């Protein structure tokens, strides 16, 4: 199966700083890929490159088997790549439906006034369709739980045609119950055919939902496409820390000379 997005040998430097040396990644439709790595491993830079914020210094990216190069985040978004950042791209003081349509508001002819009624209706319907029940689309996002906010951010991305959703540390600030809710929601989204790149620190959360594991360390992809159910949480941690290599994991002796 052709992956929805494939990244090969991508590198990026900022001045003299080599943020990414060699990154590889692939994610297919209906698949959850966990991107693991310590702080400074290059995860966020890689995400920003996929998002179109930065261009790669070298290397290639493909979407549906076609080479791609995004000049701006808007281009990436048009191609169906949405990111749910840590702040979720949600404004706490604004209502759910205004957040849902933020930057993409619906207007009415002929004066271009906002079509609040239609936005409210579409927001409620679309979220319900994705399995997210909101009490009142007028409610401020700040009143919702962390899990609810996360779901709305992902639901919004899906509604606006995302085929690949990148979740940046979605569970980092959540309670156990809220985390369960978000993980369940990720599983449901996968069932609808969405490709999901799940960037996290938390091995247990990755283990719970990821089909494939990719690990970055010091700007390099050190493990790619490991089947999620064949790696333990403990092994994931050692891969991230660098105390275990993929070759060791596969049970082969390391090649001499390294």
């Amino acid at each position, binding site marked *: 199966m052709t992956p929805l997005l494939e990244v090969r040998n991508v590198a990026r430097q900022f001045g003299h700083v080599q943020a990414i040396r060699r990154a590889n990644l692939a994610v297919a439709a209906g698949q959850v890929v966990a991107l693991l790595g310590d702080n400074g491993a290059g995860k966020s830079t890689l995400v920003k490159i996929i998002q179109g914020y930065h261009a790669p210094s070298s290397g290639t990216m493909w979407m549906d088997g076609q080479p791609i190069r995004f000049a701006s*985040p808007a281009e990436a978004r048009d191609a169906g790549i949405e990111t749910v950042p840590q702040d979720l791209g949600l*404004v*706490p*003081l*604004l209502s759910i439906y205004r957040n849902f349509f933020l*930057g993409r508001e619906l207007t009415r002819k002929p004066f*271009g006034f*906002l079509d609040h009624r239609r936005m409210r209706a579409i927001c409620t319907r679309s979220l319900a369709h994705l399995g997210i029940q909101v009490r*009142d689309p007028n409610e401020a996002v700040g009143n919702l739980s962390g899990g609810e906010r996360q779901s709305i951010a992902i639901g919004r991305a899906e509604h606006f045609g995302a085929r690949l959703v990148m979740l940046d540390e979605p569970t980092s600030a959540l309670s156990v119950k809220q985390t369960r809710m978000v993980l369940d929601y990720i599983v449901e989204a996968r069932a609808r055919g969405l490709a999901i790149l799940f960037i996290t620190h938390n091995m247990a959360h990755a283990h719970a939902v990821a089909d494939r594991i990719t690990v970055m360390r010091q700007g390099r992809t050190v493990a790619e496409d490991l089947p999620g159910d064949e790696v333990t949480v403990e092994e994931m941690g050692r891969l991230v820390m660098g105390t275990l290599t993929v070759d060791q994991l596969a049970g082969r002796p390391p090649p001499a000379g390294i």
Partner: protein
Amino acid sequence: MQGDARKHFLGRLRTYPEIGAVTMFLAVFGFFALLAPNFLSLSSLSGMLNLASVVGTVAIGATVLMVAGEFDLSVGATMGLAAMVFIQLSNAGLPPVVALGGTFVFASAVGLLNAVVVLRARISSFIATLGMMMVGRSLLVLWTGGSIVRLDEPGWMAALVAGRIHPSGLRMMALWFVVLIVVFHVVMTQRRFGNAVYAVGGKPSAARTMGIQVGRVKVVAFLITAWLAAFAGLMQLSRIGSINALTGEGFELQAIAAAVVGGALLTGGYGSVLGTLFGALVAGMVRNGLILMGFDSRLATGLIGLVLIVAVIINTSLRGEQTS
């Protein structure tokens, strides 16, 4: 379920930022209507609208800018300087339309300058515009020479901006004020720009993520504020025919007070132009009503201060956890 219905009702109320201002407005209005003789007379009502107009016009700009997460303390000085520009162009014999154009070109320059200092130099707008206020005041003192400067030919422009439109004393500036309230209420609630202003002030990072040009929105908000301050300066000038070095002094804080009574948060992202209308009206009502009741008018400023505090308490308690 009654409890649920009540909760739902309160929940809905919370989403209206003008709730504190409307409550205070009704309370103060009811109080004076019952107790202050002649409070409901046409001339008294017109007077209150006139009183609210100049500071209220400045406050509309303050509201938009505060929602965008910034302040402008230079608006009072801008009022005086813009009026001075109009006087100079007009007294030099240029037609009123040209003088008006020149005044707004000047206001645009002030707005842009404020925006550039705040956004480029990354100085807090409170500090940057405090500095601009002091610079502007100093320029105005030097330019006016500290004395009263007259508009030679008030003409139709003055009549259009502040002429009397009703025997009760109602003036054009009250009409302009209400029109501006409606226009900017629509801009803030019914236009994409307004939505962007709320997002930019509420959470700039999220706004940026969603493709909103944060810097551009703030520049426009600074421009709107400067334009409205300039127009308020023209109202003042048209109303009394002259200005002096102190014209507009203190309006920057009165405008912020009206915006805050109207529901605006100092931290940005929240506020209402409609609320500001009530905020500006309440101050004028207190001043007017106290005198009609025969109280010492020197209490007015203090009472307006209390109204400010109570309104904000109402706003905060109804808004609940949203602000935290």
